[in-house]
């Protein structure tokens, strides 16, 4: 019996013992086909999923390799049924392929007649296919390329897309690496993407995904459409691109609620694209406004459903998705796989932290006890009121003041959900507040002041969750959030993870009311953070 670091469970989870001498090799070997699910301190859990295995197939791994890796690193004998299942699942990928045919346009061919017949008879693909060209090939309506791939994935026979891409309108873009250089993993990510054609790059928060996007753009050397989550993020993309590439301000357009510029590189928000008036999407023509050579999807795990539908029609253009996690709260990972593309690059968070590219973080949950009067109010409140009551206790304001005082001098963010609470905090702490109502200009001014160190304390609402680059923030105090969403937690923590000049550990405080729903939600967050491998402590407010 070997003494490998991996334990393969029959429910298709893989347990990796981190402290094992072969752990590093095993991690590298299983990373292409297994999804990292939890990475607490001793044992990391990976899961084998059909999507993960197909991702591996798309990256050129075959079932034989996967089985060998499992058998080689496994501590115990591997359940035979699992090996069979892995082989069968992987075998389903590539039985069907999409090709470009000079005579018939897009053609779906199969290497397996039985599978082909099954697919042809399925209701899901009805209307997407054209004339039958041979026993194992059929024409596909060019407009259905994306929908067909989506449908085939749902049928369990994902197709390999070899139909290629249009080059788009050429537009030279060069990286301008003066005073900085692309990190090795960023370079690898951009190259893996380019060779794969289309797909998703997974990098942890703070690892510099924007630069991977910029590198992909310089590879493409073509007009580019960048889709981002909000306006502030759009401005930041623009700022970064001007600073790090040969692009000038005039070449980059912003297409948002306030401005509608279409330029060789255009940055649009999801929101403006999905705005609906009288049942139509008036801004959809942006997608056809130019002959785009590359489309960049920022935060692909947040991609709204209408964008998926639009993306289905863009299959002939190269697409790169950037994200910190493939996990979607709505479970539409399959659509990301079939419409944006398979995962092309994935860097373990730990490795990047070890290389010093992102800062380590220390998470502390501070439990406060509601004062007697508020406890009664909470106990008799309507269920839908309870979370707000528990979140907005004055006790939290008091503790936050103490924490802020403790970290006086360090750049600190106070993050909350409820505006009245934020206003109260801002007043007590004598700090500026940024929330939905704050104008973009004012927001940018405050963020800039925070970046330069002019102010060291900001009270922010959830508008700052995404894609706001505040590299200097070292302390975050979270007083309330949206019901313990894992997504939000990752994003908020991400604000802290940019490496600090002095290499200190970031602090992430969450203030929680004991014995309330707030504490229940905190449990979700605690689990999430611990699963991500962050040190997590719980302290009583009294012990602070």
């Amino acid at each position, binding site marked *: 019996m070997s003494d490998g670091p991996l334990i393969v469970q029959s429910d298709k989870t893989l347990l990796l013992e981190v402290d094992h001498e072969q752990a590093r090799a095993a991690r590298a070997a299983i990373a292409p086909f297994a999804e990292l699910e939890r990475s*607490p301190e*001793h044992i990391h859990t990976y899961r084998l999923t059909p999507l993960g295995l197909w991702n591996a197939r798309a990256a050129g791994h075959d079932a034989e390799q996967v089985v060998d890796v499992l058998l080689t690193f496994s*501590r*115990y004998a591997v*359940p*035979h*049924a699992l090996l069979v299942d892995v082989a069968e699942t992987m075998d389903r990928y590539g039985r069907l392929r999409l090709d470009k045919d000079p005579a018939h346009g897009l053609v779906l061919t199969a290497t397996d007649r039985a599978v082909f017949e099954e697919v042809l008879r399925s209701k899901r693909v009805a209307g997407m296919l054209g004339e039958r060209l041979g026993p194992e090939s059929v024409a596909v309506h060019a407009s259905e390329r994306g929908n067909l791939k989506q449908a085939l994935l749902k049928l369990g026979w994902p197709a390999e897309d070899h139909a290629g891409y249009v080059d788009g309108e050429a537009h030279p873009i060069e990286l301008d690496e003066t005073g900085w250089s692309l990190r090795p993993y960023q370079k690898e990510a951009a190259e893996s993407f380019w060779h794969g054609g289309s797909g998703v790059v997974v990098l942890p928060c703070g690892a510099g995904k924007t630069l991977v996007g910029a590198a992909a753009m310089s590879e493409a050397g073509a007009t580019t459409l960048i889709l981002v989550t909000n306006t502030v993020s759009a401005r930041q993309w623009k700022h970064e691109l001007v600073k790090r590439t040969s692009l000038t301000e005039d070449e980059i357009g912003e297409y948002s609620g306030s401005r509608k510029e279409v330029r060789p590189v255009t940055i649009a928000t999801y929101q403006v694209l999905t705005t609906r008036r009288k049942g139509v999407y008036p801004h959809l023509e942006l997608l056809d406004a130019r002959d785009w050579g590359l489309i960049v999807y920022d935060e692909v795990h947040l991609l709204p459903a209408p964008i998926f539908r639009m993306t289905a029609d863009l299959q002939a253009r190269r697409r790169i998705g950037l994200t910190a996690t493939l996990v979607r709260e709505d479970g539409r990972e399959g659509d990301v796989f079939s419409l944006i593309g398979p995962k092309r690059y994935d860097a373990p968070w730990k490795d990047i932290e070890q290389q010093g590219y992102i800062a380590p973080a220390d998470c502390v949950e501070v439990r406060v006890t509601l004062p007697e009067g508020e406890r009664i109010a909470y106990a008799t409140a309507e269920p839908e009121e309870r979370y707000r009551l528990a979140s907005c206790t004055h006790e939290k304001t008091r503790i936050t003041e103490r924490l802020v005082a403790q970290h006086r001098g360090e750049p600190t963010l106070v993050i909350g959900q409820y505006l009245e609470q934020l206003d109260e905090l801002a007043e007590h702490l004598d700090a500026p507040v940024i929330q939905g109502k704050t104008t973009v200009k004012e927001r940018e001014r405050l963020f800039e002041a925070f970046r330069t160190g002019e102010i060291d304390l900001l009270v922010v609402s959830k508008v700052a969750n995404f894609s706001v680059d505040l590299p200097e923030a070292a302390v975050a105090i979270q007083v309330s959030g949206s019901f313990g969403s894992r997504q939000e937690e990752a994003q908020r923590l991400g604000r802290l993870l940019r490496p600090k000049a002095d290499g200190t550990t970031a602090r992430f405080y969450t203030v929680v009311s004991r014995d309330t729903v707030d504490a229940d939600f905190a*449990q979700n967050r605690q689990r999430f953070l*611990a699963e991500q491998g962050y040190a997590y402590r*719980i302290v009583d407010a009294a012990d602070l």
Partner: protein
Amino acid sequence: MSTSSPRSLADQLRGWPDERLARLLAARPDLATPAPHDSSQLAARVVVRASVLRALDRLDVLELAVLQALVQGTEPHDLPAGKRAVDDALVTVTDLALAWGTPPRPVTAVAELLRLPDGPAEPDLDALPPAARAVVDTLVAEGADGRWGGRAGPTADLVAAGLLVRTDAQHVTMPWSVRLAAWAGTPLDRAPELATSARDQAMVDRAAAGAAFELVRRTELLLDLWGSHPPTALKAGGLGVRDLRSAATLLHLEPDEAALVIETAAAAGLLGTGMTDDLDAAWLPTDGFDAWQSHGVAERWLTLARAWLDGSRLVSAVGGRVADKPVNALSPDLERAWLRDLRHDVVATVASLPPGEVLAAGTGTASVVQRLRWHRPRRPASRWDQVEPLLAQAAQLGLTALGGVASYARDLDDGDPAAGLAPLLPRPVDHVLVQADLTAVAPGPLEHEVARRLAMVADVESRGGATVYRFDAGSVRRAFDAGWATAEVHDFLTEVSRTPVPQALSYLVDDVARRFGTVRAGHAESFLRSDDETALAELVHSPAAASLRLRRIAPTVVVSDVPLGTLLPRLRELGVAPVVEAVDGTVRVARPDVFRSRTPRHRAPVGLRTTARTSAVVAAVRAGDHAATTRRARTQAAVGPTEVIALLRECAESSDDAARVVIGYVGDDGTVGERVVRPRRVEGGRLTAYDERSEVERSFAIHRITAATRTS
């Protein structure tokens, strides 16, 4: 073998040494029961047709050809096969007493069973058209007779040419000379090769051991559950589809795989039918299960593996349909006596590969079938369909993996498979790794006692070689409920965890402990409450109230397990004057109950009643009269069913609304009564008509109408 030629078969048997006779009896066990008196009786049994048929079924292609040659009077050594192989085959058929004497000649029954027509001398098969040649090749390959449809075609051409001979109305057979010609060039002494590929034996062993471990673990998990939640045994025997499906979910298996686990447990005597407390028939673990559990994993596996190998149940049929009825696991009609032999043959065939060689993926199974077919050409072809499921089952059981036999499973009967398997299995561990995400991972099978205690404070999240436990408020509270103290939980965690217990977990335990028991619940039949604490104290401590079992649970509240009805009079005797509260907290005023009788029911005046009844009687009488009259003055009558329907239709459709019909109608009690009706409609086998007697429209079943007569 005796040197001089024996005069008879009995003579030859008599001359055989003991071990050779033993070999015969072992090879043809049906000869030995009941024990024959002497060699002549044995010789008589040897040639019985049924026994000979069985013996023939055990021959391989070459042995059968050699015997056939003897029957046809051809020299066996002329067959396309090596001399040695033919000699060996001759020895085999003589050993089986299918042929005897020197030179060997077949016993009569063999000759009768195998005799083929001689056929044309030197048939020229090469000149045949391809279609006909294909027919010849197929028949030779299958060694069976062909079907005769009587239509023109290659078969008919072959029959016309004398290359095939019709044996009866539906079959054709291939004459001996044709067979010999078809064999030419294909050596009969070479069994078909197995399609193989190379695979490290160590990897095969590890994969197989993984399956073996899983089998034992799953069997244990399932039977443990069924010990407390037994599934119902169906009336027809077997296990319900729903129970099979939930077992499959529990075991993370497909239903057919779960069926194998269940069937194997039953075959090993670990599962049987019994009665639950409610006297329902159920599938329960046997007491053998307890004994089995006390063995090591490897021994436990061996019990299961042997049970499967010697079993003869058609597990692969579970979940399918036979004669349009679903086949349930554990159903009694899955026994197939021939399966035991086939299981042994299949495993032995795979085991015949040298270590490092395994069946090739894809083509391996088919080659096993070819090989087995060569060894047992006379077996019905349908049995070969079972080879594939049996190979899959062997893999699930951990006898084989990746297409090869595990080295520990090569000799299940005489070797020591358990000793070979044990080192490949996960070693039991006595510790877990506790992590900050509130999980604990046991990196191997936990020792029984540790596992039991850990299962008390945490829930199992994932099973397999390792076990993942998750702590949450509920699971920790369960430990407190079972009487653990806070310190005990902490100590247990520290003791069992190889790494420091994470702060978050200690905090969780303390947090649950803090809230545990803050609210107390209990039973009481009645309570007393009073703002006068002194009065309550006095009452509780009064010796006269001792029998009321009063217990003070708060300064102002006293409870008792005596019902209020008993409590109240005693309290009054003690000089307390309690006010009783109702369930909703309002004061209930005590007042003596006042008794009342029920008001008699109001009845209608006699006159009115009489009127109503009389009118009914009259109507009845009138109707009766009418029936009588019509009986006298029949104008139109129908008796047969067709006539009745025709008459009723006619009346219903006639414009005359008053067309009346007397019908004989069989009532619910079976008696025939006469009714006078006015038909309205006839449809759907029913007559809707106005009944003069009851003065309502009624519906009559036409098949109950015995006769109909029209009046007017």
